[in-house]
């Protein structure tokens, strides 16, 4: 049983946590791609910016002496999400809307989004320096250790409080997004516009409103993903910049423009990354007793060495682009 618990700790939990963050980021990217038809690189900065907004709010809460039963990061999350949504709207108004009005090609918007990435990144570094911050400077990060000796495991099952909350929050928001897209008028309008923008417009859908709603949803989800990532690891200016390509990989694997595909893609990439670097010897060690001497398992038996963990996402990306460029769920045509 020890092996199974070890596997759960190393692969299931870490893959799920990583997958949730990728999924939330990828949903935003895929929605923006569906509505506005361009790859929004600055999404990473919405994530990092959102995380820093949440961090400032949490610090303010701590300064006012407000003590919360769950980590403050989660308590301030709704406020931070609203602020991040406003930030996303502002970025669109200031940088992308003028280009769209001029009739610029999606490629130009992509380059503009890189410009935004650089500017936001520069501003964050200007104000916060290059160091890292933690949400848990004043409060403790609770770690749950489930003693599993009852079922014959010598190792406990380890999961931290933010990780539990993260999975719950992701699940709830994905459910909410599902109902929003399928039940509400605006959500249906969004899907209609993603399918065919011209047709949506002639059938009386307010496309300008749909664009704004898209930015609000994408900004809020990006803030959620960034904050939760910062709660799980540490907050630093290049927090999300480093994982933007795995997030794009998640969106493409799921099929760009497909919200459900993005969630599936996020979880897939998250699990693939943790599985690829998992050391199988730890699980298969009991086999050493039955295997002959010349076939003993080596100390590490992982598919790829740990330092290549991030590359796994890129390899999956390249393979998917080669074999099935529209993604698992058929997305926008390539």
């Amino acid at each position, binding site marked *: 049983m020890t092996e199974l618990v070890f596997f759960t700790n190393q692969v299931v939990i870490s893959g799920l946590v990583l997958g949730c963050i990728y999924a939330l980021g990828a949903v935003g990217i895929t929605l923006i791609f569906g509505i506005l038809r361009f790859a929004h690189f600055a999404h990473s900065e919405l994530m990092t910016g959102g995380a820093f907004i949440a961090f400032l709010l949490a610090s303010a809460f701590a300064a006012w002496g407000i003590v919360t039963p769950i980590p403050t990061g989660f308590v301030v999350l709704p406020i931070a999400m609203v602020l991040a949504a406003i930030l996303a709207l502002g970025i669109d108004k200031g940088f992308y809307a003028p280009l769209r009005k001029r009739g610029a090609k999606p490629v130009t918007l*992509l380059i*503009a989004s890189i410009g935004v990435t650089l500017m936001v*990144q520069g501003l964050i570094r200007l104000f916060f320096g290059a160091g890292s911050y933690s949400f848990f400077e004043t409060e403790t990060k609770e770690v749950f250790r489930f003693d599993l000796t009852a079922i014959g495991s010598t190792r406990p099952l380890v999961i931290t409080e933010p990780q539990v909350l993260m999975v719950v929050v992701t699940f709830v928001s994905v459910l909410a997004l599902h109902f929003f897209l399928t039940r509400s008028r605006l959500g249906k309008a969004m899907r209609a516009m993603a399918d065919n923008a011209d047709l949506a417009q002639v059938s009386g859908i307010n496309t300008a409103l749909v664009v704004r709603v898209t930015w609000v949803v994408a900004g809020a989800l990006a803030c959620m993903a960034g904050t939760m990532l910062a709660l799980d690891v540490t907050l630093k200016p290049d927090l999300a910049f480093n994982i933007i*390509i795995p997030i794009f990989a998640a969106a*493409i694997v799921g099929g760009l423009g497909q919200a459900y595909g993005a969630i599936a893609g996020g979880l897939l990439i998250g699990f693939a990354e943790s599985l690829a670097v998992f050391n199988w010897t730890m699980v298969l060690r009991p086999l050493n007793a039955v295997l002959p001497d010349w076939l003993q398992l080596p100390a590490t038996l992982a598919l790829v060495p740990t330092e290549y963990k991030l590359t796994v996402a890129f390899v999956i990306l390249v393979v998917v*682009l080669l074999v099935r460029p529209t993604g698992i769920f058929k997305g926008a045509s390539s």
Partner: protein
Amino acid sequence: MIQRSLGLFAGLFVLILLIGWVMGAPFTSSRLVEAAAYALIALGLNIQWGYGGLFNFGIMGFLMVGGAAVTFISAPVNPVFWGSEGPAMLGRALLAFAAGALIVWGARKADRVGISGRWKTALTVLAWFVAYVLYRSQLDPAAAYIESAVGGGWIGGLGGHPVLGWAFGGVLAAGIAFVVGKISLGLRTDYLAIATIGISEIIRALIKNMDWLTRGTLTVSPIPWPTPLPQAYQAGGMDNLTALIAARGGFLVLALVVLAVVLWLISRAYAGPWGRMMRSIRDNHIAATSMGKNVTARQLEIFVFGSVLMGIGGAMLVSFVQIFDPSSYQPINHTFLIWVMVIVGGAGNNWGALFGAVLLWLIWVVSEPLSKAVFDLVSMWSTNVGWGAIPEIEARSAQMRVFVLGLVITIALRFAPKGLIPEVVKREA
């Protein structure tokens, strides 16, 4: 048009003189050499994006390939490695690689013996897995052995002339660009951008972690110069400063010669039928196909040509700074910066790309001291009014160049979307 370009270049010249006057000759001379290398890289991107409309966001990968190539050719020979069992072990790894490639190739041809559909797919996946395990089983012990003290740490260089290394950087970049292009050129722009970023990250991870081949984060230095080093001039009796300037001047002349030759060649190609064909593919590839042009092959061709220049430029940068440090490569500094250079300068116009490269490189390097000066002023003012000084001015101003780069590209897209020296569209009357 000509007048405007001349005016802009004259302005650039004045800017260089100004920087030389404020920052001193040693600073300016090394920035100029780097600017020449970046100009070469920007010309490479201009071929791909300006001539051919290809969206290459993997420039960093090609620069690293060039750097690794010049390191391999020009670093001194490592006698410990050649005297050890390392070469034989590497040979076996190479054999395993060949065997793996054969297995995969065989699986892909499985339909010849009647295996097709799902079974063929399963067989191909299995073949990839077997090939991978086979290769890793041979390479891992070889890598571990070479990285140990007995194996010499890394394979060392060949001790060749750095200019040979530059050429090899171009060749290696061409080979990799061929593979990358084969994989990803069929994709639409956004997908192509993301795929090339992904591939350049894979290249970075490989070069960074294959310590036996590139020495990884342990870095290789010093890498020899193609022209005499300052020490050689000092030995000739010059004082330190003059020797430094003379040596860098020598390097600059060599870099400029390469740049001039490249510029002449690609300008001729642009004006010729080949260039016209490329522009027609860029502007309307469907029409070009209907005229009988092989669009895929031509795009692959232009992707390879552009990458060659990037490889040479990357090699030049590494041999100038004399150190190959894989962890110093960042997408912002080595991919996005080049894109901003080409777009601000003028995509599709070689002089525009050249102008953009030099201008942006100067902006990039002076924005740090400049923002430090501004911060110092503001800090002095805020201390006087009693708000206290700005903390960590050094670290903050180092980050300002990223912001400045973003600002420049945003302003350029808004007010000069075709660049400062735009492409000249000639129409026959």
